[in-house]
């Protein structure tokens, strides 16, 4: 497999993207009836549905926190979402991803407004094609906003990686399989904080710096897509859209409108 070339002589990747191109991303907020908030994302061939319920009383009670809400994320792959059928039930990989996305969301939710409750986020990967954790986190924060849960900011998330020795953005499936490194980042534009960070493969410190910078830039772009999805969902506030500084305020206002 090592002799497959992932970048051609003109610097194009197999799907035609330049090194710092994202795959196509489409986000839609408010796509489910029962969930308190929801979002659907298509990111390249990834298709992910997110539903949010809560805040609601925690059961069992010993999980309650007297000073804040807990955030419980369940990231799950559908049986048919991958090439070889995935057996039902949460595997170890899904367990770990649920944990790190949960921790990322806890940082942005203003959780002390809802002591003793739980905010439950269900991330259903319907079709997977590399980058599901970033796509899932991206959609999850849109779904939280759609649910009217107060958040500091939307969290965009994107990976950068290394293929053919070169730093590129947003690895697709074949790049992820035979590439040399992957660095998923979840970044809060408003505060500049990194709430999700994993890495595996091989980076020099300089390559890490370049990859991180590329992922961060992409996050700023994805953040716009997230806001557009919410604006499309709550068109009454569409007029506020141009006022970038108030974007997060808009999210909160939207919440009021949706309740």
């Amino acid at each position, binding site marked *: 497999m090592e002799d497959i070339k992932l970048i051609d002589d003109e610097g194009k990747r197999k799907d035609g993207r330049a090194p710092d191109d994202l795959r196509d991303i489409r986000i839609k907020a408010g796509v*489910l*009836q*029962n*969930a308190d908030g929801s979002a659907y994302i298509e990111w390249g*061939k990834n*298709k992910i*549905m*997110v*539903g949010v*319920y809560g805040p*609601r009383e925690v059961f069992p009670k010993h999980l309650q926190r007297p000073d804040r809400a807990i955030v419980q994320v*369940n990231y*799950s792959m*559908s*049986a*048919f*979402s*991958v*090439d*070889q*059928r995935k057996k*039902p039930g949460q595997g170890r990989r899904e367990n770990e991803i649920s944990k790190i996305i949960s921790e990322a969301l806890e940082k942005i939710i203003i959780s002390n407004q809802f002591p003793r409750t739980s905010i*439950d986020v*269900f991330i*259903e990967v*319907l*079709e*997977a*094609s590399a980058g599901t954790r970033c796509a899932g986190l991206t959609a999850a924060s849109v779904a939280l906003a759609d649910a009217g849960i107060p958040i500091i900011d939307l969290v965009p998330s994107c990976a950068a990686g290394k293929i053919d020795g070169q730093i590129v953005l947003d690895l697709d499936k074949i790049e992820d399989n035979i590439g040399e490194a992957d660095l998923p980042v979840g970044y809060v534009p408003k505060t500049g904080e990194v709430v999700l960070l994993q890495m595996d493969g091989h980076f020099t410190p300089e390559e890490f710096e370049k990859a991180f910078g590329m992922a961060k830039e992409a996050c700023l772009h994805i953040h716009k897509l997230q806001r557009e999805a919410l604006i499309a969902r709550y068109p009454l506030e569409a007029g506020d859209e141009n006022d970038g500084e108030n974007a997060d305020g808009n999210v909160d206002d939207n919440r009021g409108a949706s309740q």
Partner: protein
Amino acid sequence: MKEIIPELKIEHIKRLAAGGNRADGRSLGQFREMSIERDVIGTAEGSARVKLGKTDILVGVKIELGAPYPNHPDEGMLKTTLELRQIAHHSFDPGQMKNRAIELSRVVDRGVRESRMIDMKKLCIEPGKKVWMVYLDIQVLDYDGNLFDAATIGSIATLTGARVPASAFGLGEDFPLPLSEMPISTTFVKIDGHIMLDPTATEEAVADARLTVTMDSQGNLRAMQKGLSGAFYYEEITTAIENSIKTGNSIREIIRSG
């Protein structure tokens, strides 16, 4: 796990039923609007998204190689799985939904299997050793009642569009699943003595009894399942069968044209 419904709402639904009416304006024997979108999942060998009113279901089929059951060495295999995950409804606690999910998947499976929809012998590659395994996986995204029919319809739509990935295994060209019948289930509930087709979540929560009738395109019965702790009179069952023939034909039209 029945949802708790306020007493007033229950009374309202019963009063409407007494007059032959329903909260969403349908007649008692009327199916909801339904949409079917096919081939929505690229990693699946077939897939369909069915929206039945506000109920939203995604079905995917994976077709892989495997070994046959020892007692059916020359037949492919069908495995049907349905999970009621909590994204679809806040009451879908995984532990408590297990029984309901098992019954649902078994009724869907029985309809497909008993109608001999799939020619299992044509899915045998090498008797006793290698056959095609058909994994039918049903995922509920949004619940507003009548998962039985939504799941069956989604499964039938998925199977009719599925292709066996033979070429990926060096076994010749891909081909459509060898199908004959097109079974369709229709589900009725009984509320205060009134029989209603295609119940919503609220109607299911109020219902005394449930009856699912799966028929083939010839108008013959292929599977039935009574549920909930109420009962039916024989005449109610035969009336349901009559409705099922008619409704099933309409649904088949939608699938064929979808």
